[in-house]
């Protein structure tokens, strides 16, 4: 049972942080509402079908979001690697360079095919 205590602790910490964030923003955040701010998703997607384009959602936002995930995953691997760098030696360095290269090939592809241009 004792081994679950840290997990419970982390769980509590998480809830506490979330609650604190919401509460803090309620208290200290500026309240300047505009049209976009009042929309359901606050992210550029309109909840009702658009007149042009037949109600389809622009894919650009998702492209950017997915690009973010690529770098997100990359950093997930980079952190433990950096922490244990001394112990891992040359092998891991080569591995990591290969990994980053692979990810960058995808990035280059997105860039060349115009995935980074908003319009």
């Amino acid at each position, binding site marked *: 049972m004792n081994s679950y205590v840290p997990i419970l*602790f982390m769980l509590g910490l998480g809830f506490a942080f979330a609650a604190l964030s919401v509460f803090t923003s309620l208290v200290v955040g500026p309240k300047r509402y505009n049209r976009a701010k009042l929309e359901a998703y606050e992210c550029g997607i309109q909840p009702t079908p658009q007149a042009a384009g037949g109600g389809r959602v622009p*894919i650009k936002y998702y492209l950017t979001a997915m690009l973010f995930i690529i770098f997100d995953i990359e950093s997930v691997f980079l952190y433990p690697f950096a922490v244990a760098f001394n*112990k891992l030696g040359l*092998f891991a360095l080569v591995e990591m360079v290969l990994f980053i290269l692979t990810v960058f*090939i995808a990035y*280059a592809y997105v*860039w*060349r095919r115009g995935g980074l241009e908003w319009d």
Partner: protein
Amino acid sequence: MTAAVLPALSNLSTLPAAFQASEVNYVAVMPLFIVFVTALIGVLVEAFMPRERRHRVQVSVAVGGLLAAAVSIFWASSNLGLTMGLSDGSTNRSLFALAIDGPALFLQGAILLMGILGVLTMAERFGGVGPDAFTPSGASTPGSPVETAATRAGALTSEVFPLTVFAIFGMMLFPTTNDLIGMFVALEVLSLPLYILTGLARRRRLLSQEASLKYFLLGAFSSAFFLFGTALLYGYAGSVYFGDLSSAISTAPLAMNGLLLPGAFLVFVGLLFKVGAVPFHAWTPDVYQGAPTPVTGFMAACTKAAAFGAILRLAYVGLDTARWEWSNALVIVALLTMVVGSVLSVTQTDMKRLLAYSSIAHAGFILVGVLAFDRTGVGAVLFYIVAYGFSTIAAFAIVSLVRQNGAEATHLSQWAGLGKAHPVAASAFAFLMLAFAGIPLTSGFVSKFAVFSAAVGSGATGTVLAVVGVLCSAITVFVYARVIVLMFFSEAPAEKVEVVTPSAMTTFSIAIGTLTTLALGVVPASLLDLADRASQFVR
């Protein structure tokens, strides 16, 4: 409080005290490595190559890379063993991610060769600028301004080649992985490109997009089953490595046995979904029909090979000691698959759906071989996969040539009387139909004979399966015979159906597929022998 927590955290760690580098036999993994690099090169070509040369370069890169990988299998075959991992000296466990053994290399070779034929059929342009079967703008509505703009801008879909090579990489990895997590990764690596490829048909786009979405949703659903099964098996054995699973079955406490059967079966569900076994088959006809025809052929041949390889490894290495728990489940699935596949193929009126149900029935026949549980069964399954794969790629390639007003004529009535106007294509297709039916002197007969005799040799259950199998193949003979009758003995429809003249690449694929079907029917001994020698798994 912090002080109390931190020691507890460090106690939890099960990492080895010192970092231990993986042992990697680079020669053994060379085929996989080459294919992966080929795919990356394909991505770079897509990014930097001028548009007018892209198609040709992409095809050359893909075919060249796959050929090189196929050649490197010869060297890999003298480096059999477990690799990509480490031996844990303290617990005497071998924690390796990959198993380079006979079945793995045999299937890698088969997938590579069939993949080359698949790429060649996908590359068909009929004199246009891009691959003919694929839309230049996959996400757009057919006929929408977006699509027109894309076409005017000269957009191409040469991404299909790197996507296909990525899929092939996943397929090669699938039967090679030696643990459940690796298997899951391979499953996703092979699936994701296929989801995209499915949605890229140039004509009948909505059908194609619908197929893609269905395939994706149901694939995700089946992946969930696979993962849930993995979790249960991990709970049971405390490890995801097949070696640990196998030994845990004799050592795990009896109280945990409740996890074993559902865990094993759910993992199998994830794999059986990929081969289109009943009741996890529902996606097959819709996806086969909606996907661009060359992709369908590639998918039918190579995905089946990869997934059966994974099933074999799981059944013969990972869960072999618990066979008494789960084999009945697979027997039920095999029976259902054979019966439903062959019975439903009777009423199909669309050629691609008909071939889809035929592929379901074939999956059932192959499962009969899997359930033989001996080396003969493994050899028979390996042979069947190759024989079926080559025939099916050629069959779908021919389907892609039969057209009416430029669009593929897949309705059976459009095939009526094809034998009179286009005897060569119709005869080749008729021959492939005979192979699917298992008529002697085709590879279909030898492969059916091999799996059924392996099953009969394994005992009473196997004999029952074999008899049901023979009965079901008798049913499917009607289906194929109907196609032949239609082509040769019926009046042609009023509106003209033509067989477009393909490029040398597609012609090559069809010729190789058909000739292999014939050769494996007349002189199958050498491949049977190779499959037999390759039927030993390493642990």
